[in-house]
């Protein structure tokens, strides 16, 4: 066997024999049942270490060799082949890896193979070098539900997949979490808010059962807000344009659409279609137009001296990055300059996808107005406002016809102008008076006084409602711009081919006969399993739903289902969830219910060190996950516990307290931030004004993204800046103070009863003796300080604008505010366990 190796590549290195020995040993030690899996074991190595030069991108390709598919890898290269199945020592791949003089990967690539990786590759070739298609490009298929030993543990089939895997690893699931943890987990996961003490107690005492709680929470309007927190990250929703002057733009009704859609349990395919192509639907209604604002969410520039053509290219690429990241979990954006290095997306695919959006003309953005000038927009009225308006119209209708109303409005304007000029004493007084009388006479001639009065009242009501309306950016299709491939992404290069709108070639095509495919076709292709990739889209979202309720994806790569993404640890479970979601008619609430009513969901998140070491990313699901709450929920929790939370749904964005001067770097125009001085101050985090260039420092410290790009997974940091926010941000100070007012008013008279009240509100449980001791001594020390310095007690109470009732003793309140501050700062308070 060794003699058959061509002399030119004969390795002169003892390492070779070492590997050979390892190989023999490894083959001996492992039975046939542990055959390597290409997707799990081999593809990640080849992708990371080899595909850069021997992958899909033909421009980078070395030695005209591809290793990303079997055909090319096995091809005869003139007497030898990269891979010879069963014969590692005749496979050029292995020989070159072992070649000391000219090894692969080459030194200049700065990539090296670990000896375990070489061993795996060698074993795989010995085992027959079987390739399989990249997992994310194969249609999800329904797998049979595995048999498990423990028949008592599983509740639904999710649990059978999980348990079967655990049993094969000789692991056991964790015990169910205690009821307090569980009820808090459910409330935070499904609404982003804590349970009230009554809700917690009812569950702990068995007065409400798990499934009923789940149903109630899914029916809560806060469910939509919670889901929107995630969705708005994906689609990069923000209140400002994001480049240069970072001016506000009009888009808040889109956020309300998202919340409403989740609350109404809109099927996910419809949700997709309305956003990408709501304007193209026949008879598209108000909400569909608002939804089409999705296409307008990207960062835009209003800087003087931008080159239109350059920004057309920038916006096109931005839209491709987002639509592919959100719905396909794909990095098609990487093919903007060249074919993708690791996935079969070509540069042409990139521009063909961009062509779907070429009917959106980002025109007329110039000028540094506030809000930014971003036509097309529409005036948005809520359903309630519309109903009221309809009522008014119905009352107006019998009074005057449309033409008369128009004339009246015109005459009113005319009269108002005359009256105004008579007041400032412009022109001849008498002449003006005559003109006014003439207008009055004309008014009287077309409308009798009584009706006119009634009309005037209704009309001013109507105008008031219309004034309450909000503008919002929408999509309005225009003839598509010509779309060319831009070689190396260079917008000044006109030599590239003209491309039509199309989906990536290796994923099929859109059957449209001779017409040009539209955004509507794209949206349908994304969601239809028969004619498009619907089930694959379902898999992207099944994985993300899992992440929302288990803290990590089944595939950890929430935004990269490509060759470099991490393959799912339990692919059968992921596929079945995808098919389930798709076959349910894209029923989001049903999907969420199915996940959270599994036994796997109920597990404790306490992680023994051995398990942490064995499964650091919780891919085997032998436990639940624990992590700090998202930024919005940290805010919402403090407001809810204090009683300050205003749960108005939808509307314009809310502006919480913010450090003075934080916007000093903004210009065109210069900005002064005005925190809301009304109820808007205490609205939920999902409604907080999202300034892309300077996101509110509290949000930022808690890892909320700037929303310039798609964020499928936020980082979870734990920094001194975050500690400073919880300690010193006026929002949290005020929440603590108002919480303390409640403790004094509702918590009884003793320290113990007050601590009981406070702990139940903040943590859904009572304090234990040690906690009582710590808090009591903090209370006493603080009180002693304030008794010596009553003025500082008074100034503590000045934090925030919520009033303090007159009858509350300032020293009492200031002292208890230390306790409530401590509670709002506890790790337990801000952690989803």
């Amino acid at each position, binding site marked *: 066997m060794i003699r058959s190796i061509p002399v030119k590549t004969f390795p002169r290195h003892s390492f070779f024999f070492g590997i050979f020995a390892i190989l023999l040993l490894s083959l001996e030690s492992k039975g046939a049942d542990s055959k390597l899996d290409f997707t799990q074991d081999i593809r990640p190595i080849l*992708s990371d270490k080899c595909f850069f030069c021997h992958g899909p991108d033909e421009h980078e390709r070395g030695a005209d060799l591809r290793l990303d598919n079997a055909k090319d890898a096995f091809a005869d290269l003139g007497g030898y082949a990269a891979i010879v199945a069963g014969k590692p020592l005749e496979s050029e791949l292995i020989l070159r890896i072992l070649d000391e003089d000219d090894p692969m990967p080459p030194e200049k690539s700065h990539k090296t193979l670990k000896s375990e990786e070489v061993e795996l590759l060698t074993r795989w070739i010995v085992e027959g070098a079987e390739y399989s298609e990249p997992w994310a490009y194969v249609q999800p298929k329904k797998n049979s539900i595995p048999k498990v030993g423990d028949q008592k543990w599983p509740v639904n089939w999710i649990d059978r997949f999980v348990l079967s895997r655990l049993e094969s690893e000789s692991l056991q699931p964790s015990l169910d979490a205690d009821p307090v943890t569980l009820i808090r987990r459910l409330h935070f996961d499904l609404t982003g808010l804590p349970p009230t003490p009554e809700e917690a107690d009812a569950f702990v005492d068995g007065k409400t059962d798990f499934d009923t709680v789940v149903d109630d929470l899914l029916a809560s309007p806060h469910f939509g807000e919670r889901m929107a927190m995630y969705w708005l990250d994906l689609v990069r929703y923000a209140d400002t344009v994001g480049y*240069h002057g970072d001016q506000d733009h009009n888009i808040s009704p889109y956020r309300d659409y998202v919340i409403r859609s989740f609350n109404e349990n809109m099927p996910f395919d419809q949700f997709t279609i309305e956003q990408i192509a709501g304007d193209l639907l026949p008879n598209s209604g108000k909400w569909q137009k608002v939804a089409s604002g999705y296409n307008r969410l990207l960062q835009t520039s209003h800087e003087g001296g931008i080159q239109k053509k350059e920004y057309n290219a920038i916006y096109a690429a931005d839209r491709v990055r987002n639509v592919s990241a959100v719905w396909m979990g794909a990095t098609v954006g990487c093919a903007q300059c060249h074919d993708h290095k690791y996935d079969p997306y070509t540069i042409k695919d990139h521009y063909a996808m961009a062509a779907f959006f070429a009917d959106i003309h980002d025109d007329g953005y110039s000028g540094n107005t506030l809000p930014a000038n971003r036509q097309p927009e529409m005036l948005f009225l809520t359903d309630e406002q519309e109903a009221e308006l309809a009522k008014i119209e119905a009352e107006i209708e019998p009074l005057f016809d449309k033409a008369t109303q128009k004339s009246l409005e015109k005459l009113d304007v005319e009269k108002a102008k005359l009256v105004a000029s008579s007041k400032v004493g412009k022109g001849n007084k008498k002449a003006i008076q005559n003109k006014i009388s003439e207008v009055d006479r004309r008014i009287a001639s077309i409308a009798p006084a009584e009706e006119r009065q009634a009309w005037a009242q209704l009309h001013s009501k109507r105008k008031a409602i219309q004034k309450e309306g909000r503008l919002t950016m929408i999509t309005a299709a225009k003839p598509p711009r010509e779309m060319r491939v831009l070689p190396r992404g260079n917008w000044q290069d006109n030599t590239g081919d003209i491309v039509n709108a199309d989906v990536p070639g290796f994923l099929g095509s859109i059957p449209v006969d001779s017409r040009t495919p539209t955004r509507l076709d794209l949206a349908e292709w994304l969601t239809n399993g028969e004619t498009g990739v619907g089930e694959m889209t379902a898999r992207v979202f099944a994985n993300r739903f899992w992440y929302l309720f288990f803290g990590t994806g089944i595939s950890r790569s929430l935004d990269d289902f490509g060759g470099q993404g991490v393959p799912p640890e339990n692919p059968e479970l992921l596929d079945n969830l995808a098919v389930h979601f798709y076959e349910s008619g894209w029923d989001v609430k049903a999907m969420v219910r199915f996940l959270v009513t599994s036994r796997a969901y109920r597990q404790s998140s306490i992680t023994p060190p051995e398990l942490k070491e064995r499964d650091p990313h919780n891919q085997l699901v032998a436990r639940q996950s624990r992590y700090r709450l998202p930024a919005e929920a940290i805010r919402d929790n403090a407001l809810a516990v204090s009683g300050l939370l205003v749960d108005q749904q939808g509307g314009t964005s809310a502006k919480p307290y913010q450090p003075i001067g934080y916007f000093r770097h903004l*210009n065109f125009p210069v900005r002064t931030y005005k925190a809301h001085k009304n109820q808007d101050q205490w609205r939920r985090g999902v409604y907080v004004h999202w300034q892309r260039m300077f996101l509110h420092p509290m949000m930022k410290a808690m890892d909320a993204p700037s929303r310039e790009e798609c964020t499928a997974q936020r980082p979870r940091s734990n920094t001194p800046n975050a500690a400073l926010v919880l300690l010193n941000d006026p929002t949290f100070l005020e929440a603590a103070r108002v919480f303390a007012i409640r403790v004094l008013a509702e918590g009884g008279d003793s320290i113990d009863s007050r601590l009981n009240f406070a702990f139940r509100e903040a943590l859904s449980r009572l304090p234990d003796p040690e906690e009582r001791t710590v808090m009591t001594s903090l209370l006493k020390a*603080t009180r002693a300080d304030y008794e010596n310095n009553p003025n500082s007690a008074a100034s503590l109470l000045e934090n925030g604008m919520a009033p303090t009732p007159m009858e509350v003793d300032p020293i009492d309140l200031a002292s208890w505010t230390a306790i409530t501050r401590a509670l709002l700062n506890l790790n337990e308070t801000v952690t989803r366990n």
Partner: protein
Amino acid sequence: MTTHPIFPSRRNFLGQAGLSLGSAAFSSLANASAADALPHFAAKAKRVIFLCMAGGPSHLETYDYKPKLDQLNGKPMPTSFTDGQPIAQLQGKELKVQGHLTKFKQHGKSGQFISDYLPHTAKIADDIAVVRSMVTEQINHDPAHTFMNTGTAVSGRPSMGSWVTYGLGSETEDLPGFVVLTSVGGRNPQPIASRQWAAGFLPSRFQGVEFNSSGDPVHYVRNPKGVSSKQQAALIDAIQKLDRKRNAQVANPEIDTRLAAYEMAFKMQTSVPDLMDISNEPKHVLESYGAEPGDGSYASNCLLARRLAERGVRFIQLYHRGWDHHGDLAKYMDICCGLTDQPTAALISDLKERGMLEDTLVVWGGEFGRTPMFQGKGGPGRDHHIKGFSMWMAGGGIKGGTSYGETDELGYHAVNDVVHVRDLHATMLHQLGIHSNRFSFPFQGLDMRLTGVEKARVIRGILA
């Protein structure tokens, strides 16, 4: 360092708290670098001070002297220079040559050309290496800054300060490793996004922290009204006790990290105001910079940069936001140079006197330069220009007095020894002991680098 009466030192704090906190948790916040095996080779520089002249200072009124420009003053700009080139506000306008709006002289032993706008910098001519052949790819401010800071115009990528702090960690436990300071003066100030110091896909703890000259020096770093330091300490102590007690039940490593975070937060409450208070600097030092305590000026920021460098901050970035001189260039150059020239030179001299210049890399420059063509918003000015402009570096193993690279006879195109932004990054990393091509982070399946995918070149010609 000032010590606090309650927690005189970290050791004491922990001792008092009855806790032996593993160093891992603490250093994960303050200290440790997250990348393996760095530096790749012996570093010349330990830290970077990046003086960003936001708006794009004119190379033709600072470092790039072109006699031909004066000869053609007022004449049409030859189309051989401008055809097919990107252009900003002069789109569709008649293009005329604008001669220098100031005089140039040679300075120092090296004889570097420096304009009369910069009399103080002229005195440090032999300490700085001027690169007169810079090019960038972005012609509008915001993307050009993003390009200068992150190596790409796509949002969401880490800034160079985050890269460096990620790679090398910080040498301070009381302060963030990457600090940003800003000042204004000159034309309408450039908006600067916090994206410019964001950590992108790197862990959040490597993001730049902005220090403010008015209000809280760092957001929320001051005790709330009506809360004394003693009370704040007692509060934090109670929080720590309860968190530790909880940790005994649930064994969550995140709680360990959190204990350290609260400790550092508390230390920052004293160390940051202490750092920001320059009133205890000797009078001659304040005068050399032209700084008045608490004025928020570029001069004060230069002095703060030195104080940050002394305390072990790894990457210090200053922005002066007044350099966008589309019109009235002469007037605004007077203002901008008046505010920045003396402090910049003072910073170099001060670092030198303290023996810190040799391991501190100082970089000066804007996000791009300005056109050789006239633009007239008010008096004569110049538009954005990306095909040739000047920057300089000093200290940290840079050979002072070097003139590197050239633009063409009108200062339009960089023609000799062209230096791309990625080459600047590669050189900066090289001085810090980092091989740019081997310094990467996996994101979306790619090995992302500050210097991107194209080959980046270290500017050997300016190295000592």
